[in-house]
């Protein structure tokens, strides 16, 4: 296989713990009730189109994109809207959401629910982007940036490569891995459609080398599709970070504060690609996704295909129930996921996994003085100095933190993971980013 590609600066290698890697995707029955937040994307939430008492069908538009960076939201089930109310979602914020009582399983007209592979490609780029936009697709790796916006290359820039993120560098998570194994053909067609939308003739799929079966499978499939190549990457976190993945595959570095298209790249996650396939070929909006439910105490670590809005409590039950010694529930992976207050949180478009951590692993170690070992600096994939940035944030020197490029931080957590003194570096970096972000916005207003 030769030397595996990877990014250059920093990185760590946490235990992979892919407990559910060999468990096929299982479709869970439609729940009795769903809670669908109107804001499931990065950017502005959608405007509600339904009110209490309305009957909806699965796939029906219930929230309309409200601005440029915003996404449509569709009813994931058929039934009656019980109420519109604020709900604490996995991000910890209260968001207006639709409670839908499920009745039957009726889908909106024109949606193809069959498993038949459709490889038709005669769409114009505009048609593809329009379908993606209509279907409410967002980045399903967790960032939830509206996909159609990413597909609209800004004037004066050209995309050269479509980069497909099959890295799944977060420990424990396996939903992308299973998708690549089970939906390989659909992903390939989705990639061809995205290539067409972006007018590029090269697509590079990056997969970490701890998923040899996915690498083999997609390499085999890629032979049938023009312009798609599969690349095995070294297992190193955060290989799946957009900028790190571009560096690994093309050796280009996205400049500070710029988007990937600056270096001719557009990155899409494999889950997103599948959603694009369904949106274009099946007319199916984004109302389902695959979620990994895992953790060392979980009796049946699983990959579930569920409707958006399903309570994660139901997913945990399906994986054998919540273990008694659970001390922390994380939405997402252990490096970048968010700790949840309770399990009454709905699955949203960005929910890649639910990780249950045992009591003994739930709390942080006690902080001790910085011994200036420089490990945080050595592992930072952005070439920052977390020890310095955290100290600047602590003493409120936000202008200095801005000069030291705190806004470049991708919040991967490698610094805090590696810190021998267990200093909550990323907490302070986030504080610094928030304050510097405010300062920048205030400056731009003037």
């Amino acid at each position: 296989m030769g030397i595996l590609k990877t990014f250059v600066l920093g990185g760590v290698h946490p235990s992979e713990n892919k407990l559910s890697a060999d468990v096929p995707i299982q479709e869970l029955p439609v729940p009795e009730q769903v809670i669908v937040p109107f804001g499931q994307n990065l950017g502005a939430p959608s405007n509600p189109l339904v009110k209490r008492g309305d009957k909806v069908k699965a796939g029906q538009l219930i929230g309309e994109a409200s601005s440029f960076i915003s996404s449509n939201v569709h009813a994931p089930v058929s039934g009656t809207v019980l109420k519109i109310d604020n709900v604490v979602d996995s991000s910890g914020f209260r968001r207006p959401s639709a409670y839908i009582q499920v009745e039957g399983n009726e889908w909106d007209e024109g949606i193809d629910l069959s498993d038949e592979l459709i490889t038709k490609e005669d769409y114009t780029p505009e048609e593809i982007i329009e379908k993606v936009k209509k279907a409410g697709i967002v980045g399903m790796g967790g960032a939830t940036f509206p996909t159609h916006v990413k597909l609209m290359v800004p004037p004066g820039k050209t995309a050269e490569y479509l980069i497909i993120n099959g890295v799944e560098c977060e420990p424990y998570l396996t939903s992308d891995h299973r998708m690549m194994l089970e939906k390989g053909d659909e992903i390939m067609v989705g990639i061809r459609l995205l290539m067409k939308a972006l007018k590029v003739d090269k697509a590079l799929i990056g997969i970490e080398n701890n998923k040899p079966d996915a690498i083999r499978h997609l390499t085999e499939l890629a032979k049938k599709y023009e312009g798609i190549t599969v690349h095995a990457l070294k297992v190193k976190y955060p290989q799946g970070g957009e900028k790190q993945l571009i560096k690994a595959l093309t050796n280009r570095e996205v400049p500070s504060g710029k988007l990937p298209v600056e270096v001719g790249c557009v990155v899409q996650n494999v889950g997103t690609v599948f959603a694009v396939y369904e949106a274009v070929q099946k007319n199916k909006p984004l109302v389902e996704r695959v979620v990994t439910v895992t953790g060392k105490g979980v009796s049946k670590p699983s990959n579930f295909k569920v409707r958006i809005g399903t309570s994660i409590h139901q997913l945990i039950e399906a994986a054998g129930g919540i273990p008694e010694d659970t001390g922390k529930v994380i939405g997402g992976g252990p490096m970048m996921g968010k700790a949840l207050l309770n399990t009454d949180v709905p699955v949203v478009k960005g929910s890649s996994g639910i990780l249950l951590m045992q009591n003994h692993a739930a709390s942080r170690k006690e902080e001790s003085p910085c011994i200036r070992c420089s490990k945080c600096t050595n592992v930072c994939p952005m070439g920052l100095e977390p020890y310095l940035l955290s100290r600047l944030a602590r003493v409120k020197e936000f202008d200095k933190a801005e000069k030291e490029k705190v806004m470049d931080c991708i919040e991967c957590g490698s610094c805090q993971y590696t810190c021998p003194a267990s200093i909550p570096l990323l907490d302070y970096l986030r504080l610094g980013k928030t304050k510097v972000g405010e300062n920048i916005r205030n400056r731009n207003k003037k």
Partner: protein
Amino acid sequence: MLTVSGSPHIHGDESTKKIMYGVVYAMIPAILVSLYFFGLDALRVLLLSVAASLFFEWIIQKYLIKGSMTITDGSAMVTGILLAFNVPSNLPSWMVVVGALVAIGMAKMSFGGLGKNVFNPALVARVFLLVSFPVQMTTWPIPKVLPSSIADTISGPTPLGFVKEGLRAGETMSQLTPHLPTYMQELLGQMGGSMGEISALAIILGGIYLLWKKIISWEIPVSILVTVAAFSAILWGINPEQYADPLFQLLSGGLMLGAFFMATDMVTSPMTRGGQLLFGFGIGLITILIRVWGAYPEGVSFAILLMNAVVPLINRGFKPRRFGKKTGMATAGK
């Protein structure tokens, strides 16, 4: 009740304690060599130095700083062992205790304790003892198995001191060399010197362990050794009768100990690899300047302390390579 905290939710197995005990393990070969050559006296100095260092850290934490207790983190033990390594094995016990007080009290705790000190504590103590008690600090016991020629000629000084005196008295290197230990003897530790610095081999073994465990990186030791070797090679090339050869400079005195264990102290060395290279270069350069032209035969301690002082400046000047600073377009697009 669920715990809620910011990501990341997992932590690697690194800890300050693990690092400090890693350094202690790395010092075992040099401890064994000192016990072999200097016997019970070395044991006395070692135990006393460690005990006094722990005691002073404990009492200062408890009654002066009133911070959280840190004596179990291993850092005071490391300082204690390093202090013992830096003194002759026949140093009077009370001087060892004074050294520990200076190291822990003055050089470490007065700055705020672990992680806050600017200068290497053990070296501050060594230099303090050297200028306060120059006679006791330079009366070197002779390792038991020293060849008779040296035992006869130099009863006290180290090879470096012997060379310095000899050259000052107008002798040439070819006259002095027959009375010096061989390279092999220097490598194994059969020469006069502080109890932990005599065997280059034992220290290199420990250094390899530190590198393997990623407690230190190669930049500091390698840049020090390369600078010393290169600089002394130039002088030796100019006049081999007036200047000692590079191998002698590398193997004698406290250079190996300084390069692998003293200069690499995380707290008092630069944060970036570029800064570490400059730091090592500075130490190597100053060491040779002092050894060749200075008043003292040995310059490693002074060199490290002087470079410790400029570490904050180095940190300001040497930043890691930021991601995205060069766009990489030059290599792309094919």
